[in-house]
């Protein structure tokens, strides 16, 4: 206890006597940790943005009707396969409706499953958009707006108008941005759509939908589910797709297999739907790990070097202290305390620097067609980076103080004196 007091006292004198050196050493730490935090926040911010771009809007499992040839053809049943070689050319799938058979029971079963966060029905119909003398091919999907907003961030893609207009007004439409541009329509205008049977519907534009993918925005619009069913001329149980969001994305494959086995439908999981994206995302994650480890190593060496020099300059003091009766341990603690103080000081400043610069980056405008909701560069304020940063600052400064001090601890005082 009494020794601790002397140790702190000596450390304080050392640190304050050479304020400039102390500051330089601490700034070395600050810079290293600050850089780490900035890079990580920015890099993972971008990654999350890209992931979110796809993952947030893509259903974990998409359910739709199977259109594939029957696996067991009638001929196979009649002439058993073991003794005969049945060969049929150009098998075609049986004609089936686009709607999912028994969609409503499936939907309510899914909603009961506690692995499922939510499931939304959609009814899709092909239409022509008419405005004046123009007409354009298009697709209108009927949705349950509230659920789409909750599960798939649907609101983020409505760049103009109000997403809730679909609920307020039955004949409201959220028009694809490409369509709106081509027909030079905007919110509040009317648009005529014609279904495949030639029936005409007048809809009012409640908002503009922009996904960022031009080929989608040029054809896709959204209306209320009921409205879509009406355009289709079908009843309330006509549902062509069900989109499922799970609590854990990793359940996508097993759940989609389960659905396929239980019901007579096709279920596509997100891994298959976004195979390329998945690989890209894995590689980006790998890169960010590599970069973060590299940054930490570089910062660590910088910190270690600066502090090591700081300590070596004090070797003479070590010899004197030992000569006058301080033990090797006392001396070691003196230098560890100094190193840790510098690490703490530099680390806290580094956190400040990292946070400050992150805030600045967060304000820099970043506008892109593809990302209607993004206005500035993305930053990930994950506290883990800050904790890692300060932990690392303390570990590397501790080692930078500990290693030379441990060496000095073992030396006879005279060996240091003669070494000068």
């Amino acid at each position, binding site marked *: 206890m*009494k*020794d601790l007091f*002397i140790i702190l006292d*000596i450390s304080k*004198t*050392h640190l304050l*006597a*050479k304020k400039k050196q102390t500051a330089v050493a601490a700034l070395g730490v600050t810079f290293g940790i600050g850089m780490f935090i900035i890079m990580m926040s920015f890099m993972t911010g971008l990654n999350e943005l890209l992931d979110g771009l796809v993952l947030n809007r893509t259903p974990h499992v998409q359910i739709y009707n199977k259109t594939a040839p029957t696996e067991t053809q009638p001929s196979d049943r009649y002439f058993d396969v073991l003794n005969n070689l049945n060969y049929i050319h150009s098998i075609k799938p049986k004609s089936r409706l686009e709607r999912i058979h028994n969609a409503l029971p499936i939907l309510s079963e899914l909603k009961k499953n506690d692995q499922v966060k939510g499931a939304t029905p959609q009814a899709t119909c092909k239409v022509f958009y008419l405005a004046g003398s123009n007409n354009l091919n298009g697709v209108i999907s009927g949705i349950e707006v509230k659920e789409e907003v909750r599960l798939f961030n649907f609101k983020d893609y409505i760049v103009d108008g109000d997403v809730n207009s679909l609920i307020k007004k039955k004949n409201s439409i959220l028009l694809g941005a490409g369509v709106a541009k081509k027909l030079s329509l905007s919110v509040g205008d009317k648009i005529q759509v014609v279904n495949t049977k030639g029936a005409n519907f007048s809809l009012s534009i409640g908002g503009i939908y922009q996904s960022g993918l031009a080929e989608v925005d040029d054809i896709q619009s959204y209306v209320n589910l009921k409205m879509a069913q009406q355009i289709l001329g079908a009843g309330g149980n006509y549902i062509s797709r069900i989109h499922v969001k799970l609590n854990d994305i990793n359940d996508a494959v097993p759940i989609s297999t389960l659905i396929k086995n239980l019901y007579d439908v096709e279920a596509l999981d997100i891994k298959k739907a976004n195979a390329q994206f998945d690989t890209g995302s894995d590689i980006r994650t790998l890169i960010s790990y590599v970069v973060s480890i590299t940054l930490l190593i570089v910062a660590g060496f910088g910190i270690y070097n600066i502090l090591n020099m700081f300590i070596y300059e004090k070797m*003479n*003091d070590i*010899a*004197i*202290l*030992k*000569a*006058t*009766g*301080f*033990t*090797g*341990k*006392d001396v070691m603690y003196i230098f560890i305390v100094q190193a840790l103080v510098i690490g703490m000081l530099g680390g806290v400043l580094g956190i400040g620097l990292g946070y400050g610069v992150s805030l600045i980056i967060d304000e820099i405008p970043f506008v892109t067609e593809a990302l209607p909701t993004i206005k500035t560069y993305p930053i990930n304020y994950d506290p883990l980076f800050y904790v890692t940063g300060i932990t690392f600052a303390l570990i590397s400064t501790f080692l930078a103080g500990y290693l030379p001090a441990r060496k000095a601890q*073992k030396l*006879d*005082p*005279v*060996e240091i*004196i003669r070494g000068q």
Partner: protein
Amino acid sequence: MNLILETKNINKYFLEPVKFHVLKDISIQLQRQEFVSIMGKSGCGKSTLLYILSTMDTNYDGELIIDGQNMSNQTKDDLARIRNEKIGFIFQFHYLLPEFTVLKNVMLPALKLGKDDANTIKKNALEKLDILGIADQANKKASRLSGGQKQRVAIARSIINNPKIIMGDEPTGNLDSKNSEIVFDVLRKLSAELDMSMLIVTHDHDFAKKTDRIIEMEDGFIL
């Protein structure tokens, strides 16, 4: 007879750059309160011997006994404690902590010993500085002193814990004859009053003549 320090056949070699036998069969004895000076040509091994006797160098052959304890059995921490408590050392090149005040330099060994509280230690330190005539410098940084002043601070530091033995490596080397005399008188008085023994390396014949005994060294031997 009352031995405070004794060596038996101490030998020391330097291995770098070539093997060099610095100290050869050194056997000396130092009595309580005895004031002994060591003389010899430059390079004959006086500093080397003093470092060994003060336990700051443990790399030698032979035996060193201080106050009845054999030093070869001690751990480094024990040696540090013994140096702190029993030995006051005055370096040839004074060796103060440059960033600390004069007062702090003198106080530190006593703070480490921890026998007295900080206030008493401060008072003692000021007393010792006063004896050596540099009490007025107490709050200056050690690096700001002249060579002679530094040397006197080093002497004050060596006596702060009232050690059993004071070893000095030319403690008056940087001092004029008047101050050199003051230092001699201080040391003499301490040895008588506080039961301290002195082992002082010096090139100053006048200084040496006033001591109880002179040990002559030549080429690593005691004559």
